[in-house]
């Protein structure tokens, strides 16, 4: 896992509320066996029309979205299906963080395991971001804060262990495997 400490990136706005993981990646793409290239399925039914041509009305197909690596989305992003294909497709497409006022639990968990940072902001910051499309944000995991282009910094909540793993490139599976003796002790006690 690559270490993530601090980065600066451009935003793109998708203000729809309750964007579910079926929109992020429709079920027909879940037969993919690997994560490489899965970004082409991201928001497939919004990005492409029925004949497979890019839908120019959709924000990710517009010039303002070029080079954007932070998605600013409406409330309750990532609800619905537990498919990890959702963060995989966002990451493969090029996103490094999602900003919203809230995230669905499973999506948030899945994102943190894939180097995609879910950033919860209050509605005031959220609205400011919507009013400033394509603005630059500095995401700082060390200080758990984002800095807006106007110089304002606000802290964001992040589960401390997930943050540690992201900053140090630690695989969470290795951490559990290191507790093998405790797991065995638990199993023996249950028998």
């Amino acid at each position, binding site marked *: 896992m690559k270490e993530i400490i601090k980065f600066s990136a451009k935003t793109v706005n998708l203000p729809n*509320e309750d964007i579910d993981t079926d929109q992020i990646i429709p079920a027909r793409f879940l037969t993919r066996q690997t994560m490489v290239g899965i970004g082409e399925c991201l928001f497939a039914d919004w990005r492409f029309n*029925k004949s497979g041509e890019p839908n120019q009305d959709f924000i990710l197909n517009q010039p303002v979205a070029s080079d954007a690596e932070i998605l600013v989305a409406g409330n309750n992003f990532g609800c619905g*299906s537990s498919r990890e294909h959702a963060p995989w497709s966002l990451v493969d497409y090029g996103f490094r963080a999602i900003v919203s006022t809230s995230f669905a639990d499973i999506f948030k968990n899945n994102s943190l395991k894939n180097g995609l940072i879910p950033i919860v902001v209050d509605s005031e910051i959220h609205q400011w971001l919507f009013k400033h499309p394509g603005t630059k944000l500095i995401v700082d995991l060390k200080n758990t804060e984002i800095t807006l282009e106007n110089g304002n910094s606000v802290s964001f909540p992040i589960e401390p262990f997930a943050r540690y793993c992201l900053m140090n490139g630690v695989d969470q599976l290795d951490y559990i495997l290191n507790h093998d003796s405790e797991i065995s002790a638990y199993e023996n006690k249950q028998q």
Partner: protein
Amino acid sequence: MQTAPKTLFDKIWEQHVVVPETEDTPAILYIDLHLIHEVTTPQAFSLLRENNLKVRAPQKVLATMDHSTPTVPIGSLKDLDIVSEKGPAQQIRDMMQNCEDFGIELYGFDSKRRGIVHIIGPELGATQPGKTIVCGDSHTSTHGAFGALAFGIGTTEVAHVLATQCLLQRKPKTLAVNLNGRLDKGVSAKDIILKIIGQIGVDGGTGHAIEYRGDTVAYLTLEQRMTICNMSIEAGARAGLFAPDQATIEYLHGRPMSPKGVEWDRALRVWKELKTDAAALFNQEVDIDVAALTPMITFGTNPGMVMPIESIIPDHKGNQSFKKALDYMKFESGKPLLNHPIDVVFIGSCTNSRLSDLRDAAKILKGRKVAENIRVMIVPGSQSVKTEAEAEGLDKIFKEAGAEWRESGCSMCIGMNGDTVGSGKLAVSTSNRNFEGRQGSGSRTILASPKTAAASAITGSVQDPRKFEN
């Protein structure tokens, strides 16, 4: 020393803590039962292979194939390529290989016990009170109906559980949903959960485990409780639970994987303790008047956009997401949906494909015909449900009415292998999600109970099942 009063959730949680939670680290939580299927496991098995890891406890894994399996009958695996799309067929073959390589018993195509993972777990008696149960599927919350702590996980976590039988978890908060009164005629468990989601919102349960309580519980069968727990995730909740009671015990008695003999007696003693202490507090409480409920239908593109069947579609009040949802559905604020023409009826999914659901539908469809130009697809939740339904002659009732009767699987709920509603078409569906394109690209979905779906099949329009209940 007196211990603090605990909720049912607290008790199950504490019994499974391998390493306690600290400020810096989540708890390491032991998982008793891991359900797996073909769609969310391939990358997890790859991860095990890359790291040269084994499955720690193959006997605690229950594997089946449901999401992308075809629901037309196939005699043998050779037929798979004829009836299945290429991607799903490959996924099915990979699942067989993965289970073989890692020593996991698979309820595959040749198994009479195959079915939707959340249907077969309870049916086999693998789902039991007090267990921690996970699956790479958000509707794992279903198993909470038995007083188990059950929740959906991602594929990376599937790998964690395969390799360690454990998960890293922060303890969620608790939400009590108090259900009061008895269901009226023509009203179903599905209507209860749709009402709850409408009331608390699609994120009302985020970060919480729900316990369903109140005097209604005593009147609910385990199958009804499963329908309610199943859609807890649609309110954003991590899990939904009912405390086990006599009905739970009766359901589990004699099931293939239920404890036997002295083990059964021991289990009963343990299960009796699985209830919330009288003085225990929840982080939040919500009250639902079940007696006042009427059949519920959704009108938008998430399960929280729901109303009583006799109502008119609410005003969007300038909310752009709400407006976008109505545009997608081709519906208008201020208009009713009752008698609105439909194209498809789907009765199935992990929410509503158990025997009682099929009986509900059959009672209404018996001796009647589905409307012309309507496609009605009925998909049992498991091969066992299929066999039982056929033994009662339900399949005949469905076929005589003009409905399709299929093999088990997730089918049109997820639309992964040809079972789709069709672009632009409108379905009344007993499934759990009315998201844009959920039932296939361009599909439009109205969620409802099996009774409402069956009534709608007859008239070819959104219909109140109370019209057909005597």
